[in-house]
């Protein structure tokens, strides 16, 4: 594995079990808010902004960092790219209201400007599907938005590819909207801890029967979920790409504060050396 510890010096494109190294040109922008739409899940919103730059450079797995809080918490907060509309020059992020940044975002109005930095991320999902592979995307929480983008990207580039998205949540009303996935012909399996929708159980319960030698798993969500999915895939000899959403103070590789430990003992910066890793590399 190449060591990207101190940042790349040229843009590279490199594939490794479905992971792509692709640094978009990073720009800081005052993008214009197009809309902030509440979802059926409580306190969840989709924010769409105008940015020709982000719309043309963002790939599945990339994220952007928003500075919307003028208060005493000083850092930007990262959000995965959820949908991209290159023609309109727009991108969207899906978020739930948690602290000051997301509160401020939920209150933005069309025409407001939003301070964004992106696209961020060095190793991202590889959207080019390999023939005959069953793509299984397993997400929960704020891992769902990037997988949504990935599923649609795979579908768009290979209409015949088998794509299944497994989405887990505590309870039915926390499952975030992905009707557009169904529209795109993606199979969607819901799992809820309380059985209020879909499979009664964890995402791994839904994943297990699907794991075959032709599967490839992509996962993003809470760490315990990714660990379980990664380990299950590994036990079945299936490639698994995990997108690690750690706390990211800078998002661009300069603070070295976002690290996770790799099996080789090295601490890797999830923002630029990731966020996507082969599950088998991570020391959970």
């Amino acid at each position, binding site marked *: 594995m190449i060591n990207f510890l101190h940042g790349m010096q040229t843009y590279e494109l490199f594939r490794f079990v479905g992971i792509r190294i692709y640094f978009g040109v990073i720009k800081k922008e005052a993008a214009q808010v197009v809309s902030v739409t509440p979802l059926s899940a409580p306190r969840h919103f989709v924010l769409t902004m105008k940015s020709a730059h982000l719309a043309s450079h963002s790939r599945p797995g990339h994220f952007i960092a928003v500075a919307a809080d003028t208060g005493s918490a000083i850092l930007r907060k990262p959000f995965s790219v959820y949908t991209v509309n290159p023609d309109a020059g727009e991108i969207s992020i899906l978020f739930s209201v948690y602290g000051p940044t997301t509160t401020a975002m939920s209150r933005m109005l069309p025409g407001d400007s939003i301070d964004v930095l992106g696209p961020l991320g060095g190793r991202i999902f590889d959207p080019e599907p390999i023939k005959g592979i069953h793509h299984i995307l397993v997400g929960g929480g704020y891992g769902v938005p990037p997988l949504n983008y990935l599923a649609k990207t795979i579908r768009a580039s290979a209409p015949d590819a088998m794509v299944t998205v497994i989405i887990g949540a505590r309870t039915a009303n926390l499952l975030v909207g992905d009707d557009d996935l169904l529209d795109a012909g993606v199979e969607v399996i819901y799992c809820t801890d309380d059985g209020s929708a879909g499979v009664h159980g964890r995402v791994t319960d839904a994943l297990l029967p699907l794991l075959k030698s032709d599967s490839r798993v992509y996962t993003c969500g809470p760490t315990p979920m990714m660990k379980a999915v990664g380990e299950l895939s590994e036990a079945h000899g299936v490639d698994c790409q995990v997108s690690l959403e750690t706390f990211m103070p800078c998002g661009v590789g*300069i603070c070295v504060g976002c690290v996770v430990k790799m099996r080789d003992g090295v601490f890797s910066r999830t923002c630029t050396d990731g966020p996507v890793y082969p599950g088998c590399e991570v020391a959970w």
Partner: protein
Amino acid sequence: MSTVNMTVQIGSLKMRNPVTTGSGTFGFGSETKDLVPLDRLGAVTVKATTRERRLGNPPQRIVETASGILNAIGLQNGGIDDYLANKAPYLRGFDCPIIVNVPGENPNDFAYVVERLTAAGAADAVELNLSCPNVSHGLDYATDPQLAASVVAAVRKVTSMPVIAKLSPNVTDIRVIAKACEDAGADALSMINTVVGTAIDPRKRKFRLANITGGLSGPAVKPIALLAVWRCYNTVKIPIIGMGGIACPLDAIEFMLAGATAVACGTGNFVDPTLSLEVIDGIEKYCVENGFADVNALIGAVTAA
């Protein structure tokens, strides 16, 4: 744009403007190449480079606090070999002086790294990180005037590059350390490094940082940093690089008025990697608007209320 002289001098190091980066807050210059053309900076101060490669501390390494952050990175870096092989060549592609930050566990470590840098011509100045509070024994050199002087003296012997001693605010009287470093041959001082602190998650009843203690930086520490600069400015004759909480051009001007010859943007880079460019432009604008033909006229120009 204007006729303001923005050049400042840190020992024999000439900077085209008074703005550099805080070590550890700007990587090795390549990470933000899309955003910051290095040759616009007065100098680039890169992440700490140690004798051996260091893995650093386990996460959680950074947490947010009121108007600041606590960090306990633990000096993760590839070591001097990695710096010379993989970082310096990139940095040398720009017309921008390089200041390399050097920590160490004993005077020999410091001298070894500085010697290698000197031999390779891979730096234009060295900043001795006497004060990194996150590594065991790391604090000692910055808290004792004799120990601090011993490091400066050891490094002084092996290089003709400007030697900058970086001071810690975690001392009873920073002036004593400043004076000792000056007397031992430092060409300049930089301050402040982070302020020791900790944070607790009251819900989990656990420390937030894996390392328990961390270094506080960001706007919260600016008042502490400004006083350190002012006190040292009135104590030593060598120039000072001021830092601690700079988030906008006027913050940088406060530091120069307090006695800093140059300033560094640190944590502010995490919020906005282009901060140093904004600060450079803002200082120049301030000089124009306030009738200063030379930025050096700002240094120590504060008066009583």
